[in-house]
């Protein structure tokens, strides 16, 4: 399996890349980590005229903690760089837990945040995280730039709001209000494979009741998505050692009612629905146990299926 013929150019600045995209967008493929693009080229699923290599754009490689606590990640940061960043390990533990599940070290060493979001694989970790953490994406083109919510950016499995002349430059992750409980769970056939299903949960509580809930799952036909029905089922629940069984049931029913599971070689719809429910349950219990005031003991679970 060898890639088809194409030309290669190393972009020297974001401006130069945007000019190229403006004049030849549809003929060009941006080459970031290459961990999704290169397999597609090797399989000859794509035939771009030009590969525009953006790996040398230092402007896209910054990790910044802004004054308001927002984490701004350059689109070209590698999965492994983000995963190992002390700021991420400290303030976004759910991100670190999810990124550790992406492929293997050699894949994480090269694959980038921007590449994963632009590729939008329905089982990928970054789109799920972007929805869960309500990320805002910065898109640039020769005409100017725009900033859109993750929910607007991800329009379905393998489909995004990115235009052919646009470059994803950075992604903002707003600070999470303190005192949250988090959980992430994923199931794959073997360690490092794409998830069959994954779930992330964030919970906040006040005065003994759940006040805010965010739930995102991956593995659906439409790609990663939030599950508002399941979130609503948890609002107002009293804290205790664990959520009541009836509440858990309502959460999982809401998941089944709103997310249509993807079907592929690895899992039928029924199996994937079951695994997705199991992952959501696991992530929810882990988030619950991490909430201050639940008396939870299991502070570690939820990062592995």
């Amino acid at each position, binding site marked *: 399996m060898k890639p088809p013929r194409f030309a290669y150019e190393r972009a020297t600045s974001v401006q130069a890349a945007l000019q190229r995209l403006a004049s030849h967008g549809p003929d060009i493929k941006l080459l970031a980590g290459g961990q999704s693009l*290169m397999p597609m080229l090797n399989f000859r699923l794509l035939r771009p005229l030009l590969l525009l290599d953006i790996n040398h754009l230092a402007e896209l490689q910054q990790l910044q903690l802004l004054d308001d606590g927002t984490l701004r990640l350059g689109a070209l940061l590698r999965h492994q760089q983000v995963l190992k960043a002390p700021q991420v390990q400290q303030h976004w533990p759910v991100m670190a837990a999810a990124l550790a599940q992406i*492929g293997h*070290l050699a894949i994480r060493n090269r694959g980038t945040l921007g590449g994963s979001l632009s590729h939008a694989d329905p089982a990928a970790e970054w789109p799920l995280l972007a929805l869960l953490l309500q990320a805002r994406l910065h898109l640039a083109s020769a005409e100017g730039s725009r900033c859109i919510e993750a929910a607007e950016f991800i329009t379905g499995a393998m489909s995004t709001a990115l235009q052919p002349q646009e470059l994803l430059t950075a992604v903002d992750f707003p600070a999470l209000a303190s005192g949250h409980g988090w959980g992430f769970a994923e199931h794959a056939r073997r360690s490092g494979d794409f998830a069959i299903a994954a779930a992330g949960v964030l919970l906040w509580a006040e005065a003994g009741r759940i006040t805010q809930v965010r739930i995102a799952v991956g593995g659906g036909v439409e790609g990663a998505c939030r599950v508002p029905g399941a979130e609503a089922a948890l609002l107002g629940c009293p804290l205790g050692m664990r959520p009541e069984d009836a509440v858990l049931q309502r959460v999982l029913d809401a998941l089944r009612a709103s997310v249509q599971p993807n079907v592929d070689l690895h899992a039928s719809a029924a199996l994937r629905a079951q695994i997705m429910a199991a992952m959501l349950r696991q992530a929810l219990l882990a988030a619950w146990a991490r909430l201050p005031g639940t008396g939870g003991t299991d502070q570690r679970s939820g990062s592995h299926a």
Partner: protein
Amino acid sequence: MHEAKAGETRSETRAPESGAELGEFADQEFVPIQLTVNGRRVRQLVEARLLLSDFLRGTLGLTGTHVGCEHGVCGACTVMVDGVSARSCLMLAAQTDGCTVQTVEGLGSMQAMSPLQQAFQQCHGLQCGFCTPGMLITATDMLANDHPADEAAVREGLSGNLCRCTGYQHIVQAVMQVAMQGDAVASKGAVNAAVNEVQS
């Protein structure tokens, strides 16, 4: 285009064919690159679509890097690029301009094997040897940059490299052996440092 200097590799590349299909990008189908491979400087004009794995094997004759799946899943082609492991089937040779690449040939020689290579030999960490170059490079990266704490971490670290022969047990043993030696060296270093501090 590029004059070869003494000590540099420059093999013949076929002349660019007419690039009509690529339209106005036709003159960017061949890319001059200069990189360091196992400590040796290499200059070459490469076709843009040439995979790093094929460049290493076909152009430079470094056939220690193996090619299994060509889509990133088997790990046989793993090499070090600028100090970290990467799949050479998922990189273009053109991308490595200015890079430092290390292949299995650069880890050690028959006369002077690296500690990891010795451990593979001692523990019988290979049978047919097809997966071995990728295993060695992956383990080298893991030991240097990801510090596996226990056997589970070693197994996780090797999970991206497929072996069809050994059943993995002896590979894991070999890597564990070096990881523990590393710990011994590190803790000995710490003890020495503490002793020095006390003495000074």
